[in-house]
């Protein structure tokens, strides 16, 4: 059984069919790539899966459970976490706090526990601090832990985005262009982190335009175009697929 299964998902915005019946299967412990030209509906698909935007019709199954139309925080709580294309986050929180926020089961998030400073909350907080420190060490963010997130460089923001997701200890992470606008050496570093995460037992669904990264990382690639499934398979198969070439490059005009 696939970890994530999307069936016949549709979503329109003011008459534009952003998604016109998309199917998707993401197997566990693999990196699945999601590619397609701009406007293919990749980010809309992420929004519908993660609960940011409800789909018009279709189903989303995660671990066999129907999560279609759930609130985003409920979807997060069952272990499916996403990132955003433009590194979004909490600029007026410190890097540490950005990480801690994603920690789950923190009783101190109840106002009553906060007012009495419950020991359970303090204990959980120190566990989360340890986890945040371990993740920051892995991502080379230790030196900036107490800096506001707004002061990070673009590359560090991308790393923080990955770190935040890891704090939630998810089963599946949806990454929206994790290496867009990142320099080549950091791109390799991020790719290495993603590979290591999958080796640790996570599963990844990845939107990316950087084809070298897709080729290098993805076990399976799904191509969307104009809100529909176009093709899927290994990267090598797809790079020889004429329909995929056309979708990216346009059709060769036949001169007769």
């Amino acid at each position, binding site marked *: 059984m696939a970890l994530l299964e999307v069936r016949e998902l549709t979503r329109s915005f003011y008459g534009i069919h952003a998604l016109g019946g998309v199917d998707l299967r993401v197997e566990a412990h693999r990196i699945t790539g999601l590619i397609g030209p701009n406007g293919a509906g990749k980010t809309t698909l992420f929004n519908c899966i993660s609960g940011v935007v409800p789909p018009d019709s279709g189903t989303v199954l995660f671990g066999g459970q129907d999560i279609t139309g759930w609130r985003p925080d409920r979807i997060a709580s069952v272990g499916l976490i996403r990132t*955003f294309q433009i590194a979004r986050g*909490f600029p007026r929180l410190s890097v540490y706090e950005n990480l801690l926020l994603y920690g789950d089961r923190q009783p101190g998030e109840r106002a009553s526990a906060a007012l009495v400073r419950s020991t359970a909350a303090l204990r959980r907080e120190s566990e989360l601090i340890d986890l945040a420190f371990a993740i920051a060490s892995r991502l080379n963010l230790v030196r900036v832990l*107490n800096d506001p997130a707004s002061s990070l460089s673009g590359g560090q923001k991308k790393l923080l985005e990955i770190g935040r997701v890891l704090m939630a200890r998810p089963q599946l992470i949806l990454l929206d262009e994790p290496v867009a606008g990142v320099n080549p050496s950091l791109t390799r570093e991020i790719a290495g982190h993603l590979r290591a995460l999958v080796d640790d037992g996570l599963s990844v669904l990845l939107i990316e335009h950087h084809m070298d990264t897709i080729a290098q990382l993805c076990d399976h690639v799904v191509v969307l175009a104009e809100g529909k499934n176009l093709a899927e398979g290994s990267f090598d198969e797809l790079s020889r697929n004429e329909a995929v070439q056309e979708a990216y490059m346009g059709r060769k005009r036949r001169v007769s």
Partner: protein
Amino acid sequence: MENYLIAMAVSAGIYALMALGVNVIWGLAGMVNLGLVGFFAVGAYVSALLTLKLGLPIAVGMASGAVLTAAVGVAVALVTVRLRGDYLAIVTLGFAETIRIVASNTLWLTNGTDGISGIAGPYRGSLSPAAFNLTYLAIVTAIVAVTFVLAERLRASPFGRVLRAIRDDEQVAAIAGKHVALFKVKAFAIGAAALGLAGALYAHYTSYIAPDIFVPLLTLYIKLALLAGGLGNNRGAIVGAFAVVFLLESTRFVIPLVPGVSAVQGAALRELLIATALIVMLRYRPRGLIPERLPRIPVPPSTPPSVPPAAAASTKNYQPTA
């Protein structure tokens, strides 16, 4: 003069309590509430009516005022949960005006625009006015101190962290697993409770309340206090409240000294001074007298060096020669 100063300290304390409440809603959670005087009015009326009409003890009246105002806060938050920024501001402004107009017209309950007089104060009958003022100042100070401690705990807690995250980006906070609407409602309820308690304290101090006390200007004074002190910062809320009361009251004495200004012109001049103070403040200290600071979490000493040890050693030994 002494009595006057004590009275000003009491009103500064009440302002501080309001600013602490608004800081939860606006400073931490980022929700612009322009209707805070409405919550203040609800607390004042509830406590005044319960003690006057049902003969309940003052403490019970005040507690009920806080609790009922929190309930009203929940209702307002539920109605406005999908609104942000200017839209939330305009709806809350409308809420406060609605409360004022209802209070003006519900004659059987609130005595309309004539207001309610003879509201009991603690030991008012058995103390001299000066002693009563001092007693009341002690009560207000104690309440502000306790509220401050609780507000600091909230701010520094994971709960406060979620509110500040919502202030920055609601959608990402939801992805982080937070039930955003629930947190907003809670923040509103907590802030409203402090506002309601402040209203009750005001009613039992002055012994008289009427709808024309609860005008939008008071909302702006509290906003000014919080901006001046430092938004998102409880210390700043208290400092700002005292600064605003000082500014309001000191201009009362300065204006008559300006030659050739009539009383009416003087009042207008005072508003002008206050507005100028706000503009100067926002221009030169946009983050307030005491800017909000990020909580520092100690980084464990076993920090793995992010540069190779050899490189670190060589930078350490490097001595600038200039």
